[in-house]
């Protein structure tokens, strides 16, 4: 995965680049909006991490310009601005995700992974399958090892999200945003409670667990 990081703060840039490199990604670094714009158009990146406050051309304007030039590379905005409308501004400008500083590297990494999962042009998706767990999307039925599992609508949506992001880490906020399309900060462990109920139905009666806790970041569904 090739990542372009557009960030003028050296410490933050170093933190991101070091982390992504350790994960085995190939990372390019641009310090200004102008440089970022030129690099984005010059090269073919899988995803871009763009700070909103960068010199010469601010992040919003840079992404807008890139989009106008026809480039559709997914963009994740990094920002210290967390006003009510800042997030919406970022997404309207052509960003695909928005992460507020300070952030955990695991959160950034998980979100980048989710962004690079390019929508493959496959025929109508009717079934999700991981190991012996099968989700029938047409009839909204779930079964594991041939045994049917009854799920609440919220549990069904949660499971579908896990299945679509199998092998990857999904964080609690990603789940909250993706499954319920809300962006708010719960003080209690709502997501843990939801996942725990889902586990009771999907994992507990069976030998092998599919939903794994990733310490310090979230969950991952894999065989």
């Amino acid at each position, binding site marked *: 995965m090739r990542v372009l990081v557009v960030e003028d703060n050296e410490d933050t840039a170093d933190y991101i680049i070091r982390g992504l490199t350790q994960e085995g990604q190939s990372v390019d670094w641009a310090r200004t909006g102008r440089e970022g714009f030129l690099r984005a158009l010059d090269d073919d990146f899988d995803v871009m991490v763009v700070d909103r406050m960068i010199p010469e051309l601010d992040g919003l304007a840079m992404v807008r310009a890139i989009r106008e030039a026809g480039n559709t590379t997914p963009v994740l905005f990094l920002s210290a601005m967390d006003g009510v*409308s800042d997030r919406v501004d970022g997404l309207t400008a052509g960003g695909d995700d928005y992460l507020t500083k300070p952030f955990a590297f695991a959160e950034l990494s998980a979100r980048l992974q989710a962004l690079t999962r390019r929508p493959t042009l496959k025929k109508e998706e009717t079934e999700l399958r991981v190991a012996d767990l099968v989700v029938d999307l047409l009839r909204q039925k779930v079964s594991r090892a041939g045994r049917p599992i009854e799920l609440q609508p919220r549990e069904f949506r949660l499971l579908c999200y896990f299945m679509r992001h199998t092998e990857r880490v999904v964080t609690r906020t990603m789940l909250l945003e993706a499954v*319920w399309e809300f962006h708010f900060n*719960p003080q*209690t462990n*709502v997501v843990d409670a939801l996942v725990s109920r889902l586990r009771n139905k999907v994992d507990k009666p069976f030998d092998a667990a599919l939903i794994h806790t990733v310490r310090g970041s979230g969950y991952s569904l894999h065989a």
Partner: protein
Amino acid sequence: MPDTPHISHNRTGFRLSLQYSFLYTILVTLIFVVAFLLSQHELREWAHEWMWDDAESFVQMAERDGSDALIASIEALGRINLTYDRIYALVDADGVVIAGNAKVVNITPLRSFYPIEAFGVEPADPEETTGYWVQSIPINGYTIIQGTSDHVIYELLEALRTSLILGVLAFIAVGLYLGTRVGKLTGDRIAAISDTLDMAGQGDLSSRVPAGEGPKDDLERVGRKINDTLERIERLVDVQKQITTDIAHDLRSPLQRLRQRLEKIDPDTDFDMQRDASLDAIDEIVETFQSLLRIAELERGRLLEDHGETDVGKVLATVLEIYEDTAFEAGQTLVTGQLDAGLPAIPGNANLLAQMFANLIENAITHCPGGSTITVSAVAVGSGLRVTIADNGPGIPLAERERVFDRFYRSDPSRYRKGNGLGLSLAKAISTAHGGDLSLANVDTGACFVWVWPADLMATS
């Protein structure tokens, strides 16, 4: 407050009336000058016509009665008319005065006006006479010279001057009196506004323009606008002060705990656990910080400009769905009571409204023991709506009910509970920013929060 007295000269009313008086004086003076010049001209014409009439009479007399009668007549006229400022002289061919009141006649060449010395007689009022308008006609070998003094001009001038001065003085007096009266009426009110702004400028934002018993005019409107603006500025400054104070005081203790934790960190024992605990502490601090900023942003009240309509019923249903398992894990039941299908969509931000409902439900979950029931209902009331979040937990003591929405307020300081003490403050701020009203209902068992939208719903329905 500045101690500069407000001198009456600075007042608009007074200054304006003074200016009007001045302009009036100039105008009236101009009119009087023109009137004087015109009158002078007319008088002179009139004097000459009069003298021509007399001259005609003399000619007729000389033809009818002869020169002796003419001489006698002029002699008589001269004696009578000296006090009336008229000159008569009958002069022979050698320039010698034969009859009349003039002593000398030094009028060659003949002009239409001569100074008083030209005739060697004392006019009735020498102070107010400069000379005579003169004309002459030849009769029977003599010349009759007639003159009329310009004394009458002085009389005219004097009359005009007197009326001018009296008029202007009267006008100025009346104008100043009225100007001062009017000026005092508006001046006092303007001074009050000015004083208020001075005080506000020097930092006393609680100062207000006194609500006048005066007329409901433009000044009253300006005063009201200034008061509204000051009110707003004061509130904004209060919000800023509050956030500064909150951050300074309430982030210190968690930062201190974090510092201690980091100082004592030991790479050999439980390093991972200690590091995770430190990171959690940082997340909590950031969370508190963001809540404070969000509350401040909402209280500044400039956010709900371009948000679309939000389906409150849908938001509430989703939040209930999210929290059902959390309540279950805590041994409680989250029940959806009455949930009207036709709840109105309201202008607002779905994420914020979700946060508000989430905070209220979390508050109930956090404060209720296992086995409690939390019931959430939403009903349409007229064109508005009412949402209640009620629990059958321990409730909130009467004495503390007023403070539940205060920042960092915790009902039970002795026991540690998760949360930063900002949940209800944030909910309140979201409610207010949406034009709703969040309150704690007076119930006997448990706690019951009521959110109504719009805020004056109960008053109107």
